[in-house]
């Protein structure tokens, strides 16, 4: 049984701490039950399931720390795991960035678990794949998709009095539909805490419409264009905003090696770097994107603003760096939420005289960390907009753009939707830089 209850998990952790002879000891249990189905060429290609619980024990003698893990929980194994952690700790060098373990903490009540997701069966997955394939087969299109669901728990306990437990569930689905002649391709993705909201047919329909509509794309000259970036282009496996959010580290900024470093020393926290309509925060209790209420170290995750009205209001700060610089540490967040308006993507299109709709971005890599310049390409549904309507599909572009510049060239913000566990609005951006064309479909 991979998902232990709070009482079951804490009973094991208590026992582990009882075996410890180290100065400080922290033990964590992580468990997951996951399942997946993958299909391509309108046929299931692979399917799998995993079930695992793992115990990690961190033992510390002074500033020396060692970690050992195991996935069996009889007394003898637990005892051996603790001993191993202690042996490793004794051999380890002193950690100059040592921070004592946290004491008791107050946590919010987590809301990231849904029974409907925990109950997903192989039949549910096969049905979703079957529905998606059937829709595409009927339209003479080709489906390739992936569905993965999981139920997770984490429990932490240490000999300083910290005790924590949380459960979560997640369903993640993505679908690429292609025309049999390879001239059209469309994509849709969605993720949920609660599987009851998931509908494979609806998402497949979106991808199928984009595939059929993207046949025979025309080539436009590369250059600066007004674009509407759908949420999947901003924050999924490959998203421009993800990359901005990963770059908000305080230490790198203070060390002089970040776009947030200040000339002459220090960082740019408090400066207005973006359009004043840009506000991004984290909130573990948001109803659409609930997330964990504590991080890996046991720090409480609470609502935290990162960018407020275009100003950088907080940077990720580890406990060590916070102590060294006299700041407050920030727990590592489980989500981020960009504030938006009420307009749908369709509404944004209606309000656009000339522009390009981007479904998704691909292969985003950093080009210059100094300016946060990234390159990548559009993919699976790129369309030209004129006078408030989609006119025709266009060939994919390569972009070279910085999210910092992009968030200063903001024309409009749409209604946020969940993507990759975050809440992200579609954005209309002017002067987005496309530097070349791609023949890829």
């Amino acid at each position, binding site marked *: 049984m991979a998902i232990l209850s709070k009482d079951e998990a804490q009973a094991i952790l208590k026992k582990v701490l009882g075996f410890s002879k180290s100065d400080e000891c922290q033990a*964590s249990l992580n468990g997951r039950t996951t399942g*997946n189905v993958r299909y391509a*060429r309108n*046929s*299931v290609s*692979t*399917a*799998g399931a*995993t079930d695992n619980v*793992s115990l*990690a024990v*961190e033992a510390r003698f002074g500033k020396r720390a060692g*970690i*050992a*893990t195991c996935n069996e929980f009889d007394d003898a194994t637990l005892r051996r795991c603790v001993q191993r952690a202690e042996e*490793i700790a004794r051999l380890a*060098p002193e*950690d100059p960035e040592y921070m004592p373990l946290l004491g008791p903490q107050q946590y919010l009540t987590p809301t990231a678990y849904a029974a409907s997701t925990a109950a997903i069966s*192989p039949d549910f997955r*096969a049905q979703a794949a079957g529905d998606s394939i059937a829709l595409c087969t009927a339209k003479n299109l080709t489906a390739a*998709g*992936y569905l*993965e669901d999981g139920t997770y728990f984490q429990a932490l306990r240490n000999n300083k009095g910290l005790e924590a437990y949380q459960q979560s569930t997640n369903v993640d689905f*993505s679908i690429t539909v*292609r025309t049999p002649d390879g001239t059209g*391709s469309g994509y849709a993705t969605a993720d949920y805490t609660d599987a009851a909201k998931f509908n494979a047919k609806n998402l497949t329909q979106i991808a199928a419409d984009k595939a059929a509509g993207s046949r025979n794309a025309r080539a436009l000259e590369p250059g600066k264009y007004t674009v509407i970036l759908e949420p999947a282009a901003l924050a999924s496996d490959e998203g421009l905003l*993800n990359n901005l*959010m*990963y770059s908000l*580290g305080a230490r790198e900024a203070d*060390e*002089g*090696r970040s*776009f947030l*470093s200040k*000339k*002459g020393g220090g960082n740019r926290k408090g400066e207005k770097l973006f359009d004043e309509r840009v506000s991004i925060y984290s909130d573990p209790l948001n109803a659409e994107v609930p997330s964990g209420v504590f991080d*890996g*170290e046991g720090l409480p995750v609470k609502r935290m603003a990162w960018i407020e009205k275009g100003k950088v209001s907080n940077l990720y700060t580890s406990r060590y760096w916070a102590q060294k610089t006299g700041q407050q540490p920030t727990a*590592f967040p489980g*989500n981020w939420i960009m504030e938006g308006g009420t307009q749908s993507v369709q509404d944004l299109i209606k309000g656009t005289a000339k522009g390009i709709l981007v479904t998704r971005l*691909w292969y985003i*890599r*950093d*080009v*210059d960390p*100094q300016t946060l*310049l990234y390159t*990548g*390409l559009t993919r699976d549904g790129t369309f030209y907009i004129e006078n408030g309507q989609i006119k025709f599909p266009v060939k*994919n572009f*390569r972009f*070279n753009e*910085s999210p910092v510049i992009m968030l200063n060239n903001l024309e409009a913000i749409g209604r946020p939707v969940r993507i*990759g*566990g975050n809440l992200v609005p579609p954005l209309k951006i002017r002067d987005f830089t496309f530097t070349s*064309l*791609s*023949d*890829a479909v």
Partner: protein
Amino acid sequence: MKRRDFVGLTGLAAGALWLPAIPGFAGDLVDPARLLEPGLDVAAKKRLADVALNAAKSAGATYADVRIGRYLNQGVFTREKQVQNIVSSESFGVGVRVIANGTWGFAATNTVTDAGIAKAAQLAVQIAKANSKVQKEQVQLAVQKGYGEVSWKAPIKINAFEVPIKDKVALLLAANAAAMDNGASFVNSVLFQVNEQKYFASTDGSYIDQDIHRIFPTFGVTVVDRASGKFRSRSALSAPMGMGYEYLQPKAEDKVAGPAGTGLVGYRNSYDMLADAALAAKQAKQKLTCKSVTAGKYDLVLDPHHLGLTIHESVGHPTELDRVLGYEANYAGTSFATLEWKAKGQPYGSKQVDIVADKLQPYSLGAVGWDDEGVKTKEWNLIEQGKLVDYQKIRDQALKVGQKESDGCCYSQSWQDVQFQRMPNVSLKPSTSKMSVDEMISKVDKGIYIAGNGSFSIDQQRYNSQFGGQVFYAIEKGKITEMLEDVAYQTNTLEFWGSCAGSCDASDYRLAGFFNDGKGQPSQSSAVSHGSATTRFNAVNVINTARKI
């Protein structure tokens, strides 16, 4: 944010409790001494393998294979004068793959007992039968003979796990010191080591025991100019290799001099980490004040460390048959090099381009005796004189393209993931005529020499790509004149290879490599090498990447 995002943000050395999320560090964190303890002996593995094969056949499988795998990993992480983390991990278990009702099924377990393995085999058959209801294409395997009981060992001289950790720490800290002494503001260095102890058996009658080793030392050096607010980095010019610790004992004969005036050194089968760290710091410092490139067309002279990545992205991936057939459409993408495109016989590159795939090159990351479905490894041509002649195939793909046998490039990252087609070594053949780097540069009127791989991006069908590098030098009238910055080239795969004007000879040939190449859903990591000699490409579009924010 997802767990992988956490790792992405905080870097590899972050919170050890999360380390199992890093590719390669699956399994249990263990005492380093554990990495030297022997695993199960071959006789015990054969007996357990037969349990799996018999259970699968009894449950209705028409084919079954079993992989009993012990995967050992160690990472040593440092920055400047301190050790950040030392992690040793062991992952041990059994994966069973079957065909039932013409459909694949797979299940894995770390309960390595007769009962645990039999249960996994039965579950694999159950999954295959369930999926067969929505299956449209029956699996058809290329015929494969059994090899009986055989074995293969990587040709290592020093097992890296036998080297005391204090020696590894001392090496990394010495490299850091070399960088700091030469002007670095910051330096991170890492040493990854891998040992895969794999046992494969199948109903075809193979029982294959293999011992594979990989090593990857690397670093990143950053120089910060507080006054101007500028910072520049240079990372290591090492290659991950299928070698033991001997890779870290530099030998003069493995050093290949770079172009005159650059001080650069290429490394063949051993690596001088201290010398490279010292040079990296000097070059990062130079980058702060060197000239920003003028965008335009240049003849590029690309060193093997750089070119390896371009080969990987623009030849390695598009010739993977699973991409060509559409199996990766939802994730890694498809390929421009479709069967129809190949049939037309259009050129992939100039006549100078001969590209070979292999799983044999000594010390390469791809080298093994047999792949993860019991096929003996080989070498075969992908591109001959600029024409695409073949793809990379495994057993369930060969018949789809009218071929009778697999190429032996099936791989799984662990016992608990299902094996699938992965890239073998893909290498550009060096010139058979004598040609040195300096001689090649002497013939370039207006060009740029690029060493090291940097930023890289390519579309999902592998047409349009953009590559940066670690260091760039202007070439004017046959001579290297000065260092350049803000260089990236944008190109189309066919134009790029079409502009290939030839390579240096075999004396300049060496391997570059990638330790964690991702593909598949759920994503799996694999390691692959790419060999080449320094090569010239004419009139490539170079952009300037400098921006103001």
